[in-house]
């Protein structure tokens, strides 16, 4: 009888140790993915001025593109400094807008199309955008795993013992216009080809 009790106690102790290590590992990984988001934002911020320099010669008359590039640069800078989720979202939007306008421009202008410098930089920028997206998703997945572990049985019994608190991850502000869908947004986008 005493052995059974001992075995159960040993089992529980091992479980708690495993649980503790798992959550500590997740905490480190969450920090690392936050760091990665910052790194990618910085890399984007450095790439945009290069892109501006490389297209300057070709795009003297494309004031809109320059305005968008400056705008994207500012937003990426802000996001890199504040690391706030809504800033990151805005930065990503701005970068993808510049990218699609540039894409159209490049396709309509053989001179720019021939410049490998421009296309290289655009590829790099697209790649950082991807990396940013995956870093964010990693952060979201890891935070979800962590938060599930500390609010479900049996984790919920030990979580407070070690002072594990829910991870915020990338909190998208609730309230405001973030979780509302306006009627125009539910309609299919109309595409006009002239």
């Amino acid at each position: 009888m005493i052995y059974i009790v001992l075995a159960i106690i040993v089992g529980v102790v091992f479980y708690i140790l495993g649980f503790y290590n798992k959550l500590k590992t997740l905490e480190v990984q969450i920090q690392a993915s936050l760091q990665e988001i910052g790194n990618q934002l910085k890399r984007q911020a450095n790439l945009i001025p290069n892109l501006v320099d490389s297209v300057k010669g070709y795009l003297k008359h494309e004031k809109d593109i320059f305005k968008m590039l400056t705008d994207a640069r500012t937003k990426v800078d802000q996001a890199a400094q504040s690391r706030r989720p809504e800033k990151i979202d805005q930065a990503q939007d701005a970068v993808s807008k510049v990218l699609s306008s540039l894409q159209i421009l490049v396709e309509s202008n053989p001179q720019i199309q021939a410049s490998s410098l421009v296309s290289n930089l655009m590829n790099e920028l697209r790649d950082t955008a991807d990396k940013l997206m995956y870093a964010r998703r990693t952060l979201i997945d890891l935070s979800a795993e962590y938060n599930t572990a500390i609010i479900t049985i049996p984790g919920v019994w030990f979580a407070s013992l070690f002072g594990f608190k829910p991870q915020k991850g990338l909190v998208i502000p609730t309230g405001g216009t973030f979780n509302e869908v306006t009627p125009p947004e539910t309609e299919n986008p109309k595409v006009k080809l002239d």
Partner: protein
Amino acid sequence: MVNVYENVSENKFKSTLTVGLFIGFITVAVYLISYSFNLDSSFLVIALIFSLTMSGATYFWGDKMVLALNGAKPAKREDYFDFYTVTQNLSMADQIPMPKIYVIDSPALNAFATGRDPHHAVVCATTGLLRKLNRSELEAVIAHELSHVKNFDTRLLMMVSLLIGSLSILTNIAIQNSFFGGRRGRDSRGEGNLGAVMMILGLLLAVFAPFIAKLIQLAVSRRREYLADASGVKLTRQPQSLIDALQKISGDPNILSEASPATASLYINNPFKGKSLSSLFSTHPPIEDRIRVLKNML
């Protein structure tokens, strides 16, 4: 409607079951063969040393052997920008170290992964694949390969091919042994009905073991293709890209001439398509079936 997460866990369960069946079969087969052929101890020692050396070599150098067999070259970032960066991004998202990446110079559309664990993984693609797929389709294919790496499919496949190779070598030696004096000790064991049955069963197994083992190996790898499709899509969240990529791959007439049968099950698509292999012996489920499963995730 089956979602991605349910698919992953269901596939994992079925894969474990198939692997269990496989291990059970190998154990019983080796026991029966050694019983009915009455192998003496010196033979067992040699067999043991041989199989240990072989497993060690496969475990540590299997990936290099596979790359050499397929004539693969390392891929640089400046030459294969999309391939390199896509692999980098996906391994970050999958929480594994970035694998070494290689290319095979061939117009065929194919890719494979190998290596004993995620720290020693290799992902290899043909130059044809890198030319014909766009970035998001390439992402889908690489995600599929990285899932093989993360699920340790690559190690399993490496070790399973070795086991099957060794088993058929063992069977050959056993048969030779029984013809050239291997029957020496049989009298001491008695000649009951049981002995005769075991003898026949052993002979049958000796003849059919390689075939049966091969079939089970194929079943293992087919199961794993569905699992890798599911976890790959879980990574990219874009089933449509994988569907597009698979359609491009299956619609392509080029055959990978560098592929050897030993490495066929590693590829994203059967490299011997077009050659008449019956569907039972195919290493991969038909692409239409994979696409049907993927469409359920849309």
